[in-house]
C-alpha cells in the first residue's frame, strides 16, 4: 500500500529518470508510449479473475490488455480481456432473481428469466472482436481527454447466446419500431445523471449474429464482463455491447438519450482542435486495424540476416482482405494466417524480409477489409479520439 502511494507520488511528481519508479519502489509499471505523457501505468492491483492487466482506473474499473497478450493466437483469454465500466456495477447478481424486461414499442411487454432467455431460440456461437470505441485514444496527436487507452482496449472471444431477435419475439416488436435500446444493472451514483443506455437500429438488432450472450470463451460471463448477459454486435464497437443486460426497449423514434445523442459520436467532416458545431454521427462499425506483435518499437534486429515479422489484424465490420508491411515509399504483402474464426475475429499475419540492410524506420502494417476500407497513413483526428485506425508504426534498429 505505502509503496503504491510512493510510486504514485513519484509518477506524478515525475522523477525524471528513465523508467523511474517501477523497480525502485517495487510496483510494476508499463510505459504506454503516450506522446507527451503521462504514459506510465501500474499493473496492479490485480482484479479477481484477471491476469496481469494495465490498471487505467480502479473505480469504476478500466483495465487494458498489455500488447503482449496479442503476441500469439487469435483468441483473447477471459483473464486478459479489457474491462470498461462507465458507472459502478453491482458486485453480486442473483441468477434466479434476474429479469430482463422487454418493452417499449412491443405488442406485449414481458420480464424474462435467464432460463427463458436461454430457451428463446437456438443457441448460437460467434467469435467476434470486442473493442472500445476509444481504443488507442491516448496515442492521439494532438492529445484529447478521456480514458487514456493504449491499443489494448480490445480482445477477441467466442460468445455464446441466443439471437436478440428471438428474445424480441417474446414481446413482439411493434410495427414501425426504429431502434432497440439496452440498459444494464450499472446505474449512476448520482440522481439525475444519465444511465449508460445504448441503442442500435432495428435492422442491426434483427441480424442473425447479434446476440444476447451468456458465455465468453465457453465460460459464464464474469461479472467484470457483464454477468449474466451482454449484447454482442459483431463488427461494431463494444459501446453497444451492453453488459449486465436488464432492459431491452424497442423505440418507435430516434434515441435522444445522452450516450447516443450526445456522446460516442464523431464528426462527418474533417475537424481540428478547437472546432465547434460540426455535424456528428454515432460511432458504430469498426474499421480495419493491424499491429506488429513480434517486435516492440525500438527493438534491435540482426543486420544482414533475414527477419520475420508477425502480428495480428482485423477487418472490422467485414472480413480481412489483406495486410501489407509498409515503410517509406514501399509496401510488401504479408501472408495471412488461416481464417479460423470468421470475419469478425482476429487473424494472424507474417512476412519475412530476405535480409535486413539497415534500420527499419517507421514501418507499420496496413490492413484492408473486403469492403475495400484500408487503414489510413495519417490519423483521422477527432476530438474524442474514437475509432483510431491509423497505421501503427515502429522503428527497428539493425545491429
Amino acid at each position, binding site marked *: 500500500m505505502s509503496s503504491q502511494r510512493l510510486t504514485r507520488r513519484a509518477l506524478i511528481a515525475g522523477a525524471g529518470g528513465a523508467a523511474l519508479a517501477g523497480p525502485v519502489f517495487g510496483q510494476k509499471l508499463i510505459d504506454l508510449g503516450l506522446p507527451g505523457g503521462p*504514459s506510465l501505468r501500474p499493473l496492479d492491483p490485480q482484479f479477481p479473475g484477471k491476469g496481469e492487466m494495465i490498471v487505467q482506473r480502479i473505480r469504476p474499473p478500466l483495465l487494458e490488455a498489455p500488447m503482449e497478450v496479442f503476441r500469439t493466437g487469435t483468441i483473447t483469454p477471459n483473464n486478459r480481456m479489457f474491462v470498461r465500466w462507465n458507472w459502478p456495477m453491482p458486485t453480486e447478481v442473483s441468477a434466479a432473481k434476474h429479469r430482463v424486461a422487454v418493452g417499449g414499442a412491443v405488442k406485449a411487454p414481458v420480464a424474462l428469466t435467464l432460463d427463458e432467455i436461454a430457451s428463446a431460440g437456438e443457441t448460437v456461437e460467434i467469435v467476434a472482436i470486442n473493442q472500445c470505441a476509444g481504443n488507442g485514444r491516448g496515442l492521439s496527436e494532438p492529445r484529447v481527454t478521456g480514458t487514456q487507452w493504449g491499443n489494448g482496449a480490445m480482445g477477441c472471444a467466442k460468445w455464446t447466446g441466443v439471437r436478440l431477435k428471438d428474445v424480441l419475439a417474446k414481446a413482439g416488436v411493434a410495427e414501425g419500431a426504429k431502434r432497440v435500446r439496452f440498459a444494464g444493472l450499472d446505474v449512476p451514483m448520482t440522481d439525475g445523471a444519465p444511465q449508460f443506455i445504448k441503442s442500435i437500429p432495428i435492422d442491426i438488432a434483427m441480424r442473425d449474429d447479434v446476440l444476447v450472450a451468456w458465455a465468453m470463451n465457453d465460460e459464464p460471463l464474469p461479472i467484470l464482463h457483464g454477468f449474466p448477459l451482454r449484447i454482442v454486435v459483431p463488427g461494431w464497437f463494444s459501446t453497444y455491447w451492453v453488459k449486465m443486460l436488464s432492459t431491452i426497449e424497442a423505440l418507435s423514434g430516434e434515441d435522444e438519450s445522452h450516450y447516443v445523442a450526445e456522446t460516442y459520436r464523431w464528426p462527418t467532416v474533417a475537424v481540428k482542435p478547437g472546432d465547434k458545431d460540426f455535424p456528428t454521427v454515432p460511432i458504430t462499425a469498426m474499421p480495419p486495424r493491424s499491429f506488429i506483435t513480434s517486435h516492440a518499437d525500438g527493438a534491435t534486429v540482426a543486420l544482414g540476416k533475414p527477419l520475420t515479422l508477425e502480428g495480428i489484424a482485423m477487418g472490422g465490420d467485414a472480413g480481412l482482405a489483406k495486410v501489407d508491411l509498409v515503410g517509406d515509399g514501399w509496401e510488401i504483402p504479408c501472408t495471412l494466417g488461416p481464417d479460423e474464426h470468421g470475419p469478425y475475429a482476429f487473424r494472424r499475419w507474417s512476412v519475412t524480409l530476405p535480409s535486413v540492410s539497415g534500420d527499419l524506420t517507421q514501418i507499420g502494417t496496413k490492413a484492408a477489409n473486403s469492403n475495400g476500407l484500408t487503414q489510413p497513413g495519417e490519423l483521422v483526428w477527432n476530438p474524442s479520439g474514437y475509432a483510431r485506425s491509423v497505421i501503427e508504426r515502429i522503428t527497428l534498429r539493425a545491429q
Partner: protein
Amino acid sequence: MRGVLALLALLCLAGCDASPVVQFKDASITLPDDSDDLPEGPGRQAVIENCTACHSPSTMLQQPGVPRAKWEATVAKMITLYKAPVDPEAVPAIVDYMVAVQARQSDVPRETAR
C-alpha cells in the same frame, strides 16, 4: 446470407425443458481496494471531498496536459451532466490543484520519430 459466419447451432428439440442449454449460477466479486492516491498540493482536500467519491484519482491524473479552461469545463460537466454534488465554492481550488499537478508532471519523455 451470412454464410461465412461460424455459427454453430445447437438444436433444441421441441419440449427440451429437461435439458437446459445453460445453467445459471449466482455470481459475485470482491473488487480490490482503491489504493490510488493524489499527490500533495493546495486544493488536494477539495478534490478528495468533491471528486473521488465517484471515481479513482487516476481519472484526472492520467489526462494529457490541458489548459485551465479545459479543467473548468470538465468540472462544470461533472456538475451539470453527471450531477456530481460538487461544492460550487470548491471549484476554483479543484481547478487550481489540477493545473498545478499537471504543470509538475514530467513523465518519461518518449523518443518518437514523429
